[in-house]
């Protein structure tokens, strides 16, 4: 029996190590394996029902690397349901969006309906296919989908958003949870934390004392209607995370006994400003 629920995978990008366990476990589950009535086996190549988007930010020597696991978003306003004919795509009582492998045959338009590009066309079977949140496993009483089972760090957590005692409800309440590309307006059930944004980083250096790191220097950043302040760390490094795209910022570095420096920066990407040399007064 299908539970009345709103199932999600809560994806914490900060905990994702990019190990690809979910990616591989998903393929192992679905390649060449049929799970009627939810899915038919996918082909050997070019189907990735769980993808990993690798996000590289920053520059040497301050790069960053993050991963965004990307399954079907199981949208509450799902364009694929709208686009399907004869009810070939439907939502289960527990929120899982299923492409019916019998009814959907030949309906290529379903692939193109998805703004997240997580529906794949099976040429041989003439079938649109995607993640089912392992509905077949849940029906058999398993606790979680295969990808979540495979995750070593708890970056993927499965549960019911409507159950206030579930871990996912707690995570959504305690963290700054968000959805991927909210601008698509499809109300995904899949939730994220820690989606990477732009950052500005650099190193403060005292021109007259370059053998010692410039620790504890006040660094401030203003732009986009907000201002932030930090102190350089023991290496003289500073960083502002979570910045907006394509925004003009003023970076100010000031320390007693030194002439303040100001840099104007534009975030067409994350920026490493490198050494910010402070001249003594």
């Amino acid at each position: 029996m299908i539970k009345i629920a709103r199932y999600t995978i809560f994806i914490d990008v900060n905990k994702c190590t990019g190990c690809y366990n979910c990616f591989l476990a998903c393929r192992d589950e679905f390649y060449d394996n049929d799970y009627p009535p939810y899915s038919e086996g996918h082909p050997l190549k070019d189907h990735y029902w769980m993808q990993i988007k690798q996000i590289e930010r920053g520059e040497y020597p301050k790069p960053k690397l993050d991963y965004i696991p990307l399954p079907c978003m199981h949208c509450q306003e799902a364009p694929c349901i709208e686009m399907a004919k004869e009810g070939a795509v439907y939502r289960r009582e527990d929120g899982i969006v299923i492409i019916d492998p019998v009814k959907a045959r030949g309906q290529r338009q379903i692939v193109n309906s998805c703004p997240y590009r997580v529906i794949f066309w099976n040429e041989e079977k003439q079938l649109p296919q995607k993640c089912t949140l392992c509905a077949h496993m849940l029906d058999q009483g398993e606790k979680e989908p295969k990808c979540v089972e495979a995750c070593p760090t708890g970056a993927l957590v499965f549960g019911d958003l409507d159950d206030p005692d579930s871990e996912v409800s707690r995570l959504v309440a305690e963290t700054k949870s968000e959805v991927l590309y909210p601008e698509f307006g499809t109300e995904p059930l899949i939730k994220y934390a820690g989606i990477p944004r732009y950052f500005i980083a650099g190193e403060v250096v005292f021109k007259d004392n370059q053998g010692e790191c410039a620790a504890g220097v006040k660094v401030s950043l203003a732009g986009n209607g907000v201002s932030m302040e930090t102190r350089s760390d023991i290496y003289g490094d500073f960083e502002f995370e979570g910045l907006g795209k394509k925004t003009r910022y003023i970076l100010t570095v000031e320390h007693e006994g030194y002439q303040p420096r100001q840099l104007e920066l534009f975030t067409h990407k994350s920026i490493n400003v490198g050494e910010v040399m402070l001249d003594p007064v």
Partner: protein
Amino acid sequence: MTEQVFTNCTNAGPVSVYVRDGKVVRIRPLVAEEKDLKPWTIEAGEHKFTAPKKFAVAPYVHAERRRIHSDERIKYPMKRVDFNPEGERNPQNRGKSGYVRISWEEALDLVAGELKRVKESYGGSAISGLTSSHHNWGIVGYKHGSFMRFMNLLDFTPVLDNPDSWEGWHWGATHTYGFYWRLGMPEPYDMLQDALKNAEMIVLWSNDPDSTRGTYTGQESALWREWLKKKGVKTVFIDPFYNFTAAVMGGKWIAPRIGTDTCLAMAIAYVWITEGRYDREYIENRTIGFDEFKKYILGEIDGQPKTPEWAEEESGVKARVIRALAREWAEKRTILSGGARGGEGGACRQAYATEWARMMVLLQAMQGLGKPGRSIWGTTMGAPSDTDYFFPAYADPQGKISSATKAANFIPVNKNRQRLYRLTLPDAILDPPLSWHGAGFCGGSLEQQFEYFEYPAEGCSEIKLFYRYGGSFIGTMLDTSKWVKMYQSPKLEFVVNQDVWFNSETRMADVILPACSNFERDDLAEWGACGGYTGHASSGSNYRVIVRQQKCIEPLWESKSDYQIFALLAERLGLKDEFTDGGKSELDWCRAFFELSDLPKLVDWETFNRKGYHVINIKEGYKPTPGLRWFAEGRACDTPDPSNPKRNTEKGHELGTYSGKIEFVSESLKKHFPEDWERPISPRYIPSWEGHHSDLFKKYPLQLLSPHPRFSFHTHYDKHTDWLNDIPVHRIKKDGYHWWPARINPRDAEVRGINNGDIVRLYNDRGGVLCVAVVTGWVRPGIIHSYGSSAKYDPLIPGKPDSMDRGGCVNLLTSSRLLSRHAPGMTPNSCLIEIEKWEE
């Protein structure tokens, strides 16, 4: 047909195997009954960290089904088309000529006939054989099992392994703090608990545990590092490559030039000495030789104080950064993580790397090694773990059907004293005689490192017959076109290759025998436990899991289990009873191992055999005994390290060095090689013979960094597991070919006109390899990062040793020169190259 579920184990985790119609259809991390798992909890401040009720296996394990049913499987026995044992053998065509399918009958007769002929003509010493590590898992059907039992019956010449992943620690650190019985690694007991409770900072120096993992314990420790993050433990990464652990943990990245880590370490010591930031009481009571070391650091011996400015000049790391790091390290309770098992790491696999590894131990000694939060710990071992119940691992004497185990009635004794050494094997075959010091894995004593070997040994034959088993070294050993030359030598009258998959060396053989994987035969083993010189390695997992590796499917195509193949050969040689111990099946061996272990105290055979696994949880009232705490506190060793020879003796409070203390000046080196300037009695910085000071640097100004891989294991799983080709860190598809990535800093790429995704040629005087360029700020300028483990050797001209390879075997470029004169370790990270855009 209905689905059946079996249990099995891989080199990176236990699995449940789902089978339909004789095919593996899916694999899951072992699905254990919930009641079998009793998770431990570590309390650290306001945090409680509890082991999860599941098993985290390595990524490639999830793709195991593709490896089992791979197109790269060896399906039938085969013979090289131009090999005629009665006439022309054409050894020069090994690697070039094709093969013809033959029957098992013909193959076995041929191999047995050649074994017999060579043994009778030249003696057993003319037969040698070589295995790789961990293409399969299981103690019966593995290298120390079937292979070695058979070979010992023939009095063959074993090839000594070099301690490939931890060279500098083995040949260097052992002379500083002992632990030769762990081949230079520190004891790992309860280090996780110590880290979570006590550590304020962790310095990961040449260590990427998220990629190399606990060697065999899958991804269990990934969560531990997440816990360290949650606890707020600060992290520092010292590595020319912004590695994947750095990417997930964050913190400070310090990228020295390759070969200069020792300078960095000495400059840290300089700051501590000159600013008085070290543990004087510990130095006084737990170490010897500090004053001599201090003189060198301060420049009183060679006139060069090892200042941060000096280190900056060599390493490219700013002096101010070295100072800041040194001070914080001393102020905070800091763990040194010098490789996935405490020691290891690319910095220990380069010229004179003994010096770096010794410096790692000495730095931590200056901060009170063994005191709370001041350990040497790789982050991958040392979970709470029961050590009372014994289960043999493949390298334990009791786990080897080839030697001492009580599981066997008859034990073959190899009467041949001749040895070869893996790193110099091609030289030995091509250009004997050859000599070296060091018995490979010197886990029996420090003296084994000084043992002298000659090949050919007195009264022994040169090698005429070479039996290659499982895996390939063209991707992982050094200057590996030499291996191709070796195979083509007429000195090798017969070469046989027995493997599950086609590997780079398979097509160098005269006869190829198809073995099956451990999913197609019966075996048993503990997860993560290699035994021998890494006692209690299963503490890299949250639970001890003993697996009855059930035969899930019949051997595919015409393959047979290794045990069966050797039994059939033994039969033809009149040695069947000796080999099979009077007719034991593989399942009989499993039963015998079960009986000699402590498992019968916990579970009966029928249950274990049927259920397929048994989990050993820690007992109520578990008492942690953190590694080396006893030493720091001047007590007798209280850890359960079974191999520590001083434990439970009157010297129980001592280390395994001659003095029993940490030696800034090594007593063992002083006694055996007092005049060796390449491994002096006290550590020195010695610039690499192939580094930024070399003449060669003008011609080849880039340094190749070739660490262990992230998505495969040695050469295993690559090439045979097609799904891994879709992971861009592993391989990148271009024009229908899956290329091996070479990572290059944007600055170096720009001056060479190289763009991301270009096919590039990496080259030096030793060879050329085609890779795909990944232009990224993850590498320091001047460095090319490319994993040293491609399983695909794909020479443009097959059979031509110096042909360019497009499979990605970057070890065709590395030097086969050893660590130093008397330290025969490998040095892949002392390699200068140039790189250019490849246009055909």
